[in-house]
């Protein structure tokens, strides 16, 4: 018995997967267009343009106001303004920064890696903690462990992340002097060995990554718990026990895979919260990432950078969600090619 037609089947399945990918990619177009429309609308949020420029903010000089006028064609009709802006945005041309005159996209690009690094590490930390916590509480709902985690989850939902950052800074950084509280490198960074430099970077990352992860921790562990409890009630779990499979295998193989699948989507949905949060922890810990750039630009009313960051942030979220959807389609045999 050959498996020849099976190989063919696999090829067809993989190509439908490819088709699904292109379909999803195509679906992004209206969303991307929507992102640009809303971003454009933000420019016109204040009523009475373009006259509002003059009385808007004493921090903007007359010269800057004129530049703003020119940058967004604020003296032209609305549709024309949008189309001109859109034409440049699709080429990733957000203009030049008011502050240092450099191209916005270049400034964003050099800041992006560190923000992504911290967010990816934070996501890893969230999964690493929330997964076991959620599973253990799901195994005995209402048990001692579950009661305590429920308590901490409640606390976590109510705790301002930036305050936690301050407290950690105060305790671990200032009082105990265990961890650096600002930037990514120590002053003597250049004199350190290769490993010393990495260790230095790692030390600097501990607090920001922990704070970035904190926001998602409570919610994610709740999701894991809820999904796991739901799955453990399913018929196939009872059937697995009835077939003599031991508890460990039932929980960690049969139940876990089913419980984890929907979490891929949740993880995708948590991306905007994570990226948005980078504004807070990057400004607290003085980390030169996209969040801090956006914060500084807002303080300086550096509009081209703000608008560029807004669009790029939304597009990143969109791509993250697409990635999550594709992972889900790949991992779950039931949901495919729809």
């Amino acid at each position, binding site marked *: 018995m050959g*498996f020849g037609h099976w190989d063919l089947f696999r090829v067809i399945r993989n190509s439908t997967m490819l088709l699904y990918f292109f379909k999803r990619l195509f679906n992004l177009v209206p969303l991307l267009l929507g992102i640009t429309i809303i971003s454009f609308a933000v420019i016109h949020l204040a009523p009475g343009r373009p006259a509002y420029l003059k009385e808007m903010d004493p921090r903007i000089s007359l010269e800057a106001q004129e530049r703003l006028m020119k940058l967004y064609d604020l003296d032209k009709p609305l549709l024309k303004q949008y189309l001109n802006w859109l034409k440049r945005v699709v080429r990733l041309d957000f203009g030049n920064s008011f502050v240092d005159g450099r191209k916005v996209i270049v400034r964003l690009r050099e800041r992006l890696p560190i923000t992504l690094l911290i967010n990816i590490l934070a996501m890893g930390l969230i999964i690493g903690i929330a997964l076991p916590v959620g599973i253990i509480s799901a195994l005995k709902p209402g048990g001692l462990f579950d009661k305590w985690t429920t308590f901490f989850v409640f606390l976590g939902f109510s705790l301002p992340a930036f305050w936690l950052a301050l407290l950690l800074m105060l305790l671990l950084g200032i009082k105990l002097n265990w961890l650096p509280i600002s930037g990514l490198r120590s002053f003597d960074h250049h004199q350190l060995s290769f490993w010393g430099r990495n260790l230095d970077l790692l030390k600097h990352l501990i607090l920001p990554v922990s704070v970035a992860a904190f926001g998602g921790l409570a919610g994610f562990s709740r999701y894991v718990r809820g999904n796991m409890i739901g799955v453990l009630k399913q018929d196939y779990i009872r059937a697995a026990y*009835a077939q*003599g499979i*031991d508890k460990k295998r039932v929980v960690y193989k049969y139940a876990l895979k089913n419980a984890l699948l929907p979490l891929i989507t949740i993880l995708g949905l948590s991306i905007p919260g994570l990226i948005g949060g980078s504004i807070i922890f990057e400004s607290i810990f003085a980390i030169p990432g996209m969040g801090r750039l956006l914060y500084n630009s807002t303080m300086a009313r550096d509009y081209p950078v703000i608008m560029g960051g807004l669009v790029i942030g939304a597009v990143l979220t969109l791509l993250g969600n697409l990635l999550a959807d594709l992972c889900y389609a790949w991992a779950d045999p039931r949901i495919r090619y729809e």
Partner: protein
Amino acid sequence: MIILDVKNLKVYFSRGKKLIKAVDGVSFSIKQGETLGLAGESGSGKTVTALSLTKLISEAKFLGGEVVFKQKDILALASSQLQKIRGKEIAYIFQNPASSLNPVFRIGSQMVEIIMMHQNKSKKEAKSCALKMLQRVGIPDVQKNFESYPHQLSGGMNQRVMIAMALSCQPSLLIADEPTTNLDLTTQAQILELLQKIKHEQNLSLLFITHNLEILKRLVDRLAIMYAAQIVEFGENLFEHPLHPYTQALLSAQPGFEGRSQILKGEVPSPFDFPAGCRFHPRCPFKKAICEQEEPLMQEREKGHFVACHVAENVVK
């Protein structure tokens, strides 16, 4: 030879501060190669009885009595020993085949896992064994369906897969809990025929649970009737000669019944609060004063025919 002997089985759950007596003193036995039917309305405790035979009810507050399977007291076994009995010696098939198979694993890999676990077989041997079993239960194109996921098959096909899995380790007892309830009539008939065929081939004992007496009539050697967490009548010729008023009412509701049909009034009592005396007395057309006070005991009224009823004799007349 008796293969499974259940004595005074009790399974209680707690819901808040209340105690639910899901199974309350159930006794019966199954012989080698026999098919025993267990019937009763939904909520009478059939499924809980079936599951507790291998201690599959982990959330039970109290589990008492005795379940003796091949000289082993199952309720006293440790979970590692139970795992060697479940699936290998006592196998189950359930009501919803589609949801009883794990949706994220291929049918073949689920089968191979069970076979490798219970029998000392290599992966290759397990696979050929699984393919053979799938063929035996009438799965078409086994090579292809071995690689399928449960959602790609119909309900009837999934139930065939469940049967193949259940029988792949040659168990001596198969417990089928409403295995055809959610299938359409044609498929139902096919599955029943398959069960009959395999039972004879393997000299298997079968505990068949359903609320559908029509099915049982064709299938079983002996029948047990459950009402309100207890067995009220048990024996060989229940269909021809029912003694308990409840059994009579159930049978009279079946199509093809000749004679005066009785329609039961009232509802199944709540498991929080069973009536005192005979649990059936509020609905019994023949009740006497004693029925409200004293719980009737199981008595052998005819050879091999047990009934728990104060008024059974009167009914017979």
